[in-house]
Each structure stands twice: as C-alpha cells, then as structure tokens.
C-alpha cells in the first residue's frame, strides 16, 4: 500500500492560472514520460536532471494534446516526499489539471488519500518526529472533513443511487456465492438473472459517470474554439457572444495574430471562447506562430465553431480548414453575414460538403443566430449526458475512479459469464464489490454473506 505511485492535484481548487498535478513513488518519472511529449525534441523526462523544468504537452489516449505543461522531476531522496516525484504545472487552469490528473490515473497511478504526500514525507524521514503529530492532524482533519462532505452527499440523491447500484451487485454476488456454498439448498445458478443484475449495475455506473461529466460541464466549463479563414467574422462572433467589443475588429486580413481567450456564460455553462487567428498559409513569421497556436487551441477545444462567410463564398481554403478538424467530434457550422444580399453559399452546397454538421445561419453584426448558437452549444456538449433527472451532477474524482474501476470488473464478469467456471467469476465480482463498497464505506463482502442467510432457507 505504501510503495505504489500516487497522484493528486496539489493546488487549491478554484480559479487559478496554474494548477499542479503532483505524482510520487518509485517509477513516477518513467510513467509520466509515457504521456509526456517534450516541446523540444530529445528532452525526454528520463534524461532530464532533477529540478529542471521541461516544457511540453500531456497527451491523451489518441495522442492528442490535453494541455501545455511545465514538468519538473525530483529523484529520491531529494524531494518533498523523499520519493521519486514529478510535478506537472498545468497551464490550462483547473479543468485542464483535472484532465491531466485523470490521464495520470489512467496509467495505474493511484489517487492519493488526503494528507498522503505529507504522510509519505514523514515516513521517509523528511520530517522530524515533532511534525508527525501535525501530519496526523492533517489526516484526521481532511478525512473528517471528507467524511462530513461524504455524509452530506449521503443525504443526497446520488448516495441513494450508489446504494441501489451496490444492491444490484450485491444480489448478483449473493446468487453466485449461495449457489457455490449451498448448492444443495439452492440449486443451480440463474445466469440470466445474474446477467440482468450485472448489466443494470454497469448501466447505472455509466449513467452516474455521465452525470459527473455533465456536472463538470456546468461546474468547470468547456472550451469552444472559433475558427475559419481570415476575415470571415470570427472576432465579431466572439464579440457578439461577449456582447462587448474587446477583440480588435478590422477589415484587414490577419489582424488577429494571437489566440484570444474570453470567458462567457452560455446557457449556464462557463465557456472559454478561443478566437483563433485566421488560419491560412503565410510567410509572416509572427502570424505563423499565431496559426500554430490556433491549431493547438482547436485540438484542445471541446467544441469548434467553424465560420464561413456567405459573401466570400466557399473556397478550397474553407475545405482545408474543415479537413484539419477531423479529430473534433463536435463542430457547429456558422454561416456569417447572412444579412448581406450576396448569397454565395447555397443550402445545397452545405448539404453536399458539410452534411454531417449542424448549421446556423447568422449575422454577427445584427446579433442574428447568436441565441441559436448558444442553445446549440449547450445541446452538443450535454448530448448523451442529460438522461439523469434523478441524479445530482456532483461526482468527485475519487468516486469517478472507483466507479470506473468497478465498471471494468463488472464488464469482465459479463464477458466471462457462462464461459468460465463460477469460482473464477467470483474473482472479478469480488473486486467489483470492493471498488463499489469504497464509495460508501460498506463491507459488501460481509453484507453479501448476511443476505444469503436472510434470503435463502439454508440449513442442515
């Protein structure tokens, strides 16, 4: 338990420019290196000296970029915890840090318990004995606060929901175990019922995970990139959304040379809007940097608004930009300057080239279509997440990790059901119970045995 690798966000929650994801344990550098791409070639983390900073990116599963980060490494025993450590300074704020942490946890790194870094520091001799009691206070305070928080949550709908999921799994486990320990009293296992129960618990977990994602959308917000070729009205669109003139708007192509970020509240969702430089081939060095940044911003965005200019018509450049968005799942096509008489884009062009996109005809100048855009953004980022009226949207990272873990085990049982012997099924079933049980602190193994006696008539 005390020599695995742990990770957590170690800066206070809330708004802040930079958040730090801290990772500690033997092999931490090796692990993080797997998801780290240095900005400068060759600056592999394993080759870096302790206490140096390395600029680069944390990559997601598909090798896309999650965030631009500064990473520092420390080697045992010269670190806070006395263990090998990696600190990832996330530039994208709280949400980006959270995503980075999730990525880190996906590597098999365990989410640290409250006060665990400090505890390790003590256990590894980085603090004297006098400080030890302070550490205990931290552990106590944090767990008690956590407990109070958890208790508060327990009163909520989610705890009822988790309990119902646990009960489903509990019943499946009870059926399995009863038929193993009391086969003569109970008879054969009803596989169909077990499958039903396991599937319901898995689907319930999915629902809860989606509720969590939805919660994240409203709590932590999303990022929307506006892109399009120069002078189609990207900045005007940004301004229309902001309802105030902040970005400089001119008629000269290439004015927006950098990525401009603004925050706006769209339908209750905090949205970071990124106005990208007009993407085009250019020899202007300054502009080129802007374009690179724009590309990165687009790849990190949760949603992209692709802007076309009805007057300029559809060109090969528009198509190139669209093609460059192929990794983006959520794209809204906004056809701007719909107020003008010259309609060089026809409905049938749209259908031919952008059949898969949602389309909004708008005029940023006259605020036409802006409300539709806002509604569509909300619809798209909450699509598939909003089927849980009975759930609250607050699912903590710890809960999420445990839910995912349980889901994985349940899935393994489902895939093995009726193919492997029942005692083997028990292995993953038990793991699923342990993961879920940690959510509410129930000893589900013991409860399962209790339920066998309660529900079945057993005895010699």
């Amino acid at each position: 338990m005390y020599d695995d690798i742990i990770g957590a966000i170690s800066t206070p929650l809330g708004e802040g420019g930079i958040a730090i994801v801290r990772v500690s344990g033997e092999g931490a550098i090796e692990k993080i290196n797997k998801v780290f791409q240095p900005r400068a070639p060759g600056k592999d983390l394993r080759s870096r000296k302790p206490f140096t900073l390395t600029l680069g990116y944390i990559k997601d599963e598909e090798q896309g970029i999650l965030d631009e980060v500064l990473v520092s490494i420390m080697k045992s025993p010269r670190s806070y915890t006395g263990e090998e450590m990696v600190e990832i300074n996330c530039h994208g704020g709280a949400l980006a840090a959270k995503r980075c942490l999730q990525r880190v946890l996906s590597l098999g790194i365990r989410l640290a318990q409250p006060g665990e870094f400090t505890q390790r520091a003590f256990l590894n001799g980085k603090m004297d004995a006098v400080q030890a009691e302070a550490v205990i206070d931290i552990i106590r305070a944090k767990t008690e606060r956590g407990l109070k928080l958890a208790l508060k949550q327990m009163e909520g709908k989610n705890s009822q929901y988790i309990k119902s999921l646990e009960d489903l799994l509990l019943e499946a486990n009870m059926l399995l175990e009863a038929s193993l320990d009391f086969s003569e009293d109970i008879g054969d296992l009803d596989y169909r019922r077990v499958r039903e129960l396991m599937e319901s618990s898995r689907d319930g977990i999915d629902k809860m995970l989606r509720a969590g994602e939805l919660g994240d959308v409203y709590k932590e917000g999303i990022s929307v990139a506006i892109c399009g070729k120069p002078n189609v009205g990207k900045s005007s669109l940004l301004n229309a959304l902001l309802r105030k003139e902040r970005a400089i708007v001119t008629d000269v192509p290439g004015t927006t040379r950098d990525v401009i970020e603004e925050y706006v509240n769209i339908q209750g969702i905090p949205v970071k809007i990124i106005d990208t430089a007009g993407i085009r081939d250019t020899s202007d060095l300054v502009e080129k940097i802007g374009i690179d940044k724009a590309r990165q911003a687009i790849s990190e965005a949760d949603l992209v608004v692709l802007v076309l200019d009805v007057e300029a018509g559809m060109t090969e450049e528009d198509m190139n930009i669209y093609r460059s968005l192929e990794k983006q799942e959520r794209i809204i096509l906004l056809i701007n300057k719909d107020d003008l008489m010259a309609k060089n884009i026809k409905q049938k062009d749209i259908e031919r080239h952008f059949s898969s996109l949602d389309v909004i005809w708008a005029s940023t100048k006259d605020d036409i279509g802006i409300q539709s855009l806002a509604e569509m953004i909300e619809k798209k980022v909450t699509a598939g997440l909003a089927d849980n009226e009975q759930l609250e949207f607050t699912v903590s990272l710890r809960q999420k990790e445990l839910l995912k873990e349980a889901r994985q085990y349940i899935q393994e049982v489902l895939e093995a059901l009726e193919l492997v012997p029942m005692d083997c099924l028990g292995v993953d079933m038990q793991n699923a119970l342990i993961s879920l049980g940690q959510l509410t602190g129930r000893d589900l193994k013991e409860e399962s045995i209790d339920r066998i006696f309660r529900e079945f008539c057993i005895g010699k």
Partner: protein
Amino acid sequence: MIYQAGNYEVVVIGAGHAGCEAALASARMGCKTLLCTLSMEHIALMPCNPSIGGPAKAQLVREIDALGGEMAINIDKAQIQMRIINTGKGPAVQALRAQADKQEYYREMLKILLAQPNLDVLMAEIEDLEITQDRVGAVITKTGARFKCQAVVITSGTYLKGRIIIGDVIYDGGPGNQFPAQKLSASLLNNGIELGRFKTGTPPRINRRSVDFSKMTEQPGDERPLTFSFISPRINRPQLSCWLTHSTAQTHQIVMDNIDRAPMFTGVIKGRGPRYCPSFEDKVVRFSHKDAHQLFVEPEGRHTDEMYVQGLNTSLPEDVQMAVLKSIPGLENVRIMRTGYAIEYDYVPPAQLKLSLETKAIEGLFTAGQINGTSGYEEAAAQGLVAGINAALKVQEKEALVLKRNEAFIGVLIDDLVNKDIDEPYRLLTSRAEYRLLLRQDNADIRLTAKGREIGLVDDRRWQDFNSKMETLEKTKTLFQQNTFTPADLEATAFLKEKGSAPLKDRLSWWDLLKRPEIGVSDFENMNWINVLDEDIAEQIQIQSKYQGYIAKQQEQVKKFEKMENRRIPVEIDYDEVYGLANEARQRLKEVRPTSMGQASRITGVNPADINVLYIYLEKKRRN
C-alpha cells in the same frame, strides 16, 4: 483432597474432533501429552450430522491432512458414502463430502489415540486450571487429581454449562445426553477469560425400518469414490445411499399450531443460534412463503438402524416432533430413536485469542473448536490441530504456526475468528476466502505438506510420496510447456477438427492448447502423445493451465496483501499512547492486539484513517 497425579507437557481437555487433533499433534511433536475426556465411549463423537466435508469444509479436511492431522485418514476409513459436490462450478469450490459411520469413526480414532506414543487418554472431568502469574501450570480433576503441565488446550465443544432444551423440558446436559462440564467455566471466568452463550440444535433420529423409501428420491454415492487423505488407499467398499424427501403444508401447519410451545419463540432459549443452520420452526416462520423444505434422510452407520433427518433440527416438544415427522412423505409410520434438541453452551469470544489460538490473558492456555464460537467438526479439527501444534511449539519455546489467509482456509478461519465480531456460531464458507482460487482442495498438499514436515508432523513416507509427486508434476508441466504443435502438424490438425476446436494459426504449446475448454489432458493420453498420467497429476496440469489467467490475478492480489501482512506491529505497543486514533478503533485494537498492519486493517471497527495514524506512530517509535 487434591493429590499430585502426574506431570505432562501438554494437557488437552476434551476428546472431540478438536481435542483428538490437538492431542495427536502435540504427542507426535514429542510432547508428553494427556488427553482428558468425560466419556471414553464418546471420543471423536459426531453428535450432529453424520457427514464430513462439503464446500470449504473439504478444503479444511485436506489441509489438516497435508499438515499431518488425522481427520482425513479417519473419515476415509469410516466413510459409507463419498460424493463430489459442486462439479462443474470450478476447481476452487468443488468439494468432497463423506457420510460417516459414526461408530466406526469413533473406533478408528480411539485405535489411533491408544497407539500413539507420548499420549495418555484419561476419563476425567477437569474442574479447575491452576494459573500462576498469568501462566497455566496445572489442571485439577473432579476427583482431586492434579496434573502439572506447561500448556493446556481446552476443546470443550458444547459441554461448558451445557443445557438441553426440548420444548418445555430443560435440563443440564452435554450433546447426546452426556454429562456437561459444570465447573470449568467458573475457573475460566476467575482467571479473566470472558464467556458468551451460543445455541445450536440437532434433528431427531429415526428408525430405518419405519421409513418408506419408495416415497423418497435416492441419493447414491459416487461410482468412483475419492479419498480425503492424500495418502489413503483407494476406496472399494460398497456405498450407502441417502434419501431426499420434503416437508408439506401439513407439516408447516403442525409447527404453526404449536409455535407457542417452541422454546425459540417463548424466550426460553437466549443463546444466539446460527443463521446458516436455523431450526425447522425458524424456517417455517421466516420463510412462510415456501410450501416445502427439502429434507435428507441419512444413515448414521452400517450397523445401526438410526437415520439422521437433515433439515429438521428442532427443539419443539417431543410430541410435536413426532407429529411433524409423520406428516412427511415416507415417514407416515416413523418411529423416533432419539429426540431432537437444542443445546446452549458457554463459549470464549475469540477476540481474546492470538492467531496461534493461545489466549492473550493466560500464557500457555489454548482454546480450539466450538468453545471458540465455531460450528462444524471440520472447523473444530482444524483449530484443534493448530492449537495442539502451537501448544507443543510453546513448550519447545519455538515460534507459533500462523497460517495466512492466502495459504489456507485454516488461516481464513482463525483470522476471521480473532478479528471479526463473532455474534453467531461461525461456519466457514468458500466466500469468506478472498483468495479462494488459490486455496483449492486439490492443491492442499502442494500448499502445506512442507509446513507439516517442518513442524514434524509429516512422516518420511508421506514426505517421499509428496516429493515424488512434485517431481513428476514439474516434469509433466515442462513437457506440456515445451512441446508445441504447428499448423503443419497433420495429426494435430485432424484432431482439432474432430474435436470441433479452431485450427491453429501459429505454433502453439500443448499448455496453451489445454486452455481451450474443449481440450483436456485425457485427449493427449488418448492420442498417445503422452503416457497415461496419474490422476492427481492430470488434475493439476488441467487446473493450472486452464485457470492460469485467474490464478495469476489472485496471485497479484496476494502480493498486495502480503505487503501489509509483513508490516509487523510490536507486541509491546501501547495503544493509549497512539495519538489520533478514533475511540472505537483504539478499543478494538487493544482488544485484538493485531500482529501486523494487515491484520489491524481487518478488525471490525478499524478504519483506513486509523491505519494511517498507526503507521505514523510506528515510524515515530522506530526512530526514537
């Protein structure tokens, strides 16, 4: 008057399943041992069901055998039916179960006890323990004999202040109308051991000649009966059958009509009974929606007409028991030979024990079996063996034997007893073992024979047999792992086609081919690719290859578990000094006094935060 009667190293009080194992182990380990019994005619008595084994229990019996205990060998001699239960549900839960000839079981065990060097068997009731400075020094019998000793193992079963209840008839008594042990409880209480009260029960026994078997379903034994012991000869005695019948609506009506006379409901019985073994009246009340409960009619031996009615344990008045029986198909003209009864008895709440089964309060005093709040002959024997071994090791001033949860069901059993709140008679279940897939009945010898040898209970013959088995097993494994088939092998290709198994795409080892559900070791034998293997070797190859993935998963879990087990907690720790422990945790830790962090984390009432606090305290201590 008390007189000096003798001097032993180990005294065992009680000669049931726990006592016999304890006494044999101690004597075989070279300790001069005295085994005291209330009745020479009731040694290794089976006062309840006439069977040994079944899920989790079969594993225990095999483990007892691998460690050099007696139960497996004895039941192999005394069996009248052997059956494998849970076939097709996986290797970890498959379990052998024997029906026993109770008289033969007693006679065979008595022979072994009497032939055992270093062991004296004495009919006597122990009334008092002599404790000086928290260390046991002697036992004193009812008739005044004082035996000096260095260790005592109490295996008193349900005899401590036993009280028999049949309806409104209540009297002091041990199981099967034996004398109870009336005084020992007070001696324990006086010496600081707490006692609790449990209840259990047994069904009436009926006369075989009064049963109409034509109305019942026959349950025969296996055609090729297996043995419990790894060294018993193959069984070729004829197997007796059991019979299946069921209760009826009329039966339940009779129970309900007389429920006001049931001690369970009138409040006469106060001790807590086991939920997994409810009385029949309890079943009828709690599961009123069921219109029939199944009942097994089982022979109690070859040379008796007594039969046991499994599923009908009861403390209803005798006349109601008779009426209940007569309402059951096949028992219309039944005659009772023994009346069913409930029994209440004193037990020692096992949180007072160390993992060695020595009491924490009194050095040299061990308890094992039902006195520790368990039920079942197998659970008793397993504890008896461990207590006997540890009593001997204590005398020899050696470190105690503690089996871990990943090593044996015996380890799970004792660990649960010490760490959990035991509030009903404890029965072992396979689901209590988190590493069940590793603790199979088929590999008990592989897991434990070396341990038994080290202790000194595995004799040369068993040791040689075991080593030669292991050698053959390793050779055979290598054979399967090194030999391969390729898609070009015509014979293999034809074979797979005939078996309906997918053709090979690449080179595949025999071992990996065995992982396919439709392929078995016998196929390799039938194809003459290998010589015919010993059954136990074939079984190991089959299980180890087919379940390799899941077994590996469990071994991963064990690694994590062991890290915590290996963090020792010093014996002298003062929990009052540990800053930051929650009150309940502090209380429980003081009570249980765990030896490792792993054990501490399993104690009911100790939370993860308390474990963290403990870590910090220990580290602080270490530095000072």
